[in-house]
C-alpha cells in the first residue's frame, strides 16, 4: 500500500500554500528581519492575559455551550452593534469559533452544494480558495487592480455572476493589500447581492485598523444585506490575540444553526480560556486597541515615506497592517524578488502571488514590526532596489 495514494483526491488537489514554501526558506536563517508575518508584534494586552490567568486559577476549564459563553455572545452583540450598527440576538445569531478561519470553513460547508459558485476578490487571504474547494464549491475569482486601489468594482462582480452563483465573499480592509472599499461601490455591490439573491460572507477581521481618519463601510450598512449575510470577525488582529484562536460569526438564525451543526461535531466549542479573555477584550480593550492602531499608523507612514524615497510604487493602504508595493519594473517574479531580497539582504517579505495570481508583481510587507527593525529593513530594501536598478 502506498500511503500517499490513500490521501483523498480532494486534499491531493490542494497545492501547498505559497506562504509555507517561503516560510521554510526563511526558517533557520539568523538575523532575518521579517516583514512576512500576518500578526501584530504586540503581545495581547496584559489585562486580557490576566483575565485568562484568573479564569484558569478559578478552575474554569470545562466545555462551554456550543455557541460559546452567553456573556461573551452578549458582549459580541454589543460590540457589533456599536461598530457595524447591526443587531444580532446572542441566543440565536452569534456563534463563537476557533478563529475566523474555522468560521470561514464552516460557513462554506454550511452553504455550498457541489458546484455552487463563490465569488471572491484576489489578491486575498490564502485560505479562501482552498476552503471553498474543500466544501465542494467552485471558486470564482475577481482580480482587483492597483489602478483601483485594490478595491472591488461592482461591474466586475456583476460580470462574474452566473446562475450558479451562491455566495459573495468580501474582505475589507484586505489582507494582503490594505485596501478599503469605497462606500458608493459597496452600495452597488450590495444591490447586486439582493438582485441576484446571493449570500454574503464578509470577513471584517481588520475593520478596526484604519488610518488617516478613514472610515470603513461594511456591506452590512446597506438595505437587504443583514438577512443574507454572515459577518465574520475575531480577536486576532485588533486585540493582538492571534494565539488565543478566537473568532465569531453573526448571521440570521437559520445560518447560525447550520454552522453550529458542523461546529458542534468538528470543534464542540472554542476554548473557554480564550472566551473569557475575549470578554475582557471587548469590555475593556478599546484604549489598547487605539494605542496599537496609532503605532501601526506611524509605521505605515515610515514605510510609505521610504518607498517614496526609493521610488518604489506603493499604493497607500487605508487599513490592516500590510503594504503591497509594486515590483514589476525589475522583470522578476514576486518569488524571485522575495528570494533574492532574503538571500542578499536578510529581509523576508511574502511574494504577492502567494495571495493569488492577481498578486504577481507585488510584495506583501507587514509593518507590524517595531520602528527600529522596520527602518533597518527598509534601508536594506532600498539598497537592494538600488542594486537591481544598476544591474
Amino acid at each position, binding site marked *: 500500500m502506498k500511503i500517499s495514494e490513500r490521501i483523498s483526491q480532494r486534499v491531493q488537489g490542494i497545492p501547498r500554500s505559497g506562504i509555507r514554501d517561503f516560510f521554510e526558506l526563511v526558517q533557520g536563517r539568523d538575523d532575518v528581519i521579517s516583514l512576512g508575518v500576518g500578526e501584530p508584534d504586540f503581545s495581547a494586552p496584559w489585562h486580557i492575559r490576566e483575565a485568562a490567568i484568573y479564569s484558569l486559577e478559578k478552575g474554569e476549564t470545562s466545555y462551554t455551550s456550543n455557541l460559546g459563553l452567553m456573556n461573551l455572545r452578549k458582549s459580541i452583540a454589543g460590540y457589533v452593534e456599536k461598530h457595524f450598527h447591526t443587531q444580532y440576538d446572542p441566543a440565536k445569531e452569534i456563534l463563537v469559533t476557533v478563529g475566523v478561519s474555522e468560521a470561514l470553513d464552516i460557513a462554506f460547508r454550511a452553504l455550498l452544494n457541489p458546484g455552487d459558485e463563490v465569488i471572491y476578490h484576489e489578491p486575498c487571504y490564502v485560505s479562501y480558495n482552498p476552503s471553498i474547494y474543500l466544501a465542494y464549491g467552485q471558486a470564482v475569482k475577481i482580480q482587483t487592480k492597483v489602478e483601483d486601489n485594490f478595491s472591488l468594482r461592482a461591474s466586475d462582480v456583476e460580470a462574474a455572476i452566473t446562475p450558479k452563483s451562491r455566495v459573495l465573499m468580501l474582505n475589507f480592509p484586505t489582507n494582503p493589500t490594505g485596501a478599503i472599499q469605497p462606500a458608493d461601490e459597496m452600495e452597488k455591490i450590495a444591490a447586486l447581492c439582493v438582485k441576484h439573491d446571493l449570500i454574503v460572507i464578509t470577513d471584517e477581521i481588520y475593520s478596526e485598523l484604519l488610518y488617516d481618519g478613514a472610515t470603513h463601510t461594511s456591506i452590512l450598512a446597506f438595505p437587504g444585506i443583514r438577512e443574507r449575510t454572515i459577518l465574520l470577525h475575531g480577536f486576532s488582529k485588533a486585540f493582538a490575540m492571534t494565539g488565543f484562536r478566537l473568532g465569531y460569526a453573526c448571521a440570521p438564525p437559520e445560518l447560525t444553526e447550520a454552522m453550529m451543526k458542523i461546529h458542534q461535531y468538528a470543534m464542540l466549542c472554542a476554548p473557554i480560556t480564550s472566551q473569557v479573555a475575549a470578554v475582557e477584550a471587548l469590555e475593556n480593550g478599546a484604549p489598547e486597541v487605539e494605542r496599537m492602531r496609532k503605532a501601526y499608523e506611524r509605521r505605515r507612514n515610515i514605510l510609505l*515615506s521610504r518607498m517614496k524615497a526609493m521610488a518604489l510604487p506603493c499604493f497607500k493602504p487605508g487599513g490592516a497592517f500590510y503594504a503591497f508595493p509594486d515590483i514589476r519594473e525589475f522583470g522578476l517574479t514576486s518569488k524571485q524578488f522575495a528570494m533574492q531580497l532574503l538571500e542578499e539582504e536578510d529581509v523576508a517579505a511574502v511574494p504577492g502571488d502567494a495571495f493569488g495570481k492577481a498578486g504577481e508583481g507585488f510584495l506583501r510587507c507587514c509593518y507590524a514590526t517595531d520602528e527600529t527593525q522596520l527602518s533597518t529593513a527598509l534601508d536594506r530594501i532600498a539598497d537592494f532596489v538600488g542594486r537591481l536598478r544598476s544591474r
Partner: protein
Amino acid sequence: MDPLLEILNKNAKFTASQLAEMLAVDEAAVAARVAAWEDDGTILGYQAILDSEKAGNDGVIAFIEVKLTPERGGGFDRLALRISKFDQVTDCYLLSGSYDLLVTVEGSTLRDTARFVSEKLSTLEGVISTATHFQLKTYKQNGLMMQTEASEKRLPVAP
C-alpha cells in the same frame, strides 16, 4: 494630547526626521513645534530612565507622606513649592486622601535622607507630620518594567 507629544512622551530619542516620517509631516515643522514646546515649558526636559541597580546607583530613595496646614489664600502651594525646591526632592505631588503631599527624596545614604526629613522637612512651619517609607525595590518606573522577559518569537512568515 498632540500625537507628536504622545510619541516624545514615550520615547524622546527619535530625531526630527524620524518623527516627521512617522507622522507624515514636514521635518522643519516638527523641529519648530518641538522648539516651541521647549520654549513655553510644555516640554520640561529629556532624561534616560535607568535601572538603578545596573547603573550602579547605590543611593536611597524615600517616599514621604507629609501633612500640612493649608494657608489662607494660597492653600498648599507656597509650602509645596518651598519643599520642591530642595535638591534632594525629585518629585512632589499634592494628593487627596489622608495626607497632603507625597514627596520623593533621593539621598546618597540612609542617614542623609533621615537627616533631611528630620532637620529640613519636619521643621518647616506648617508641616504637621511626616511618615517616611524607604524604597526597597523598583519593579516598574515611567511605564517601563525593570526586568524584561524574553517573549516567544513570532514565526517569521505567517499568512
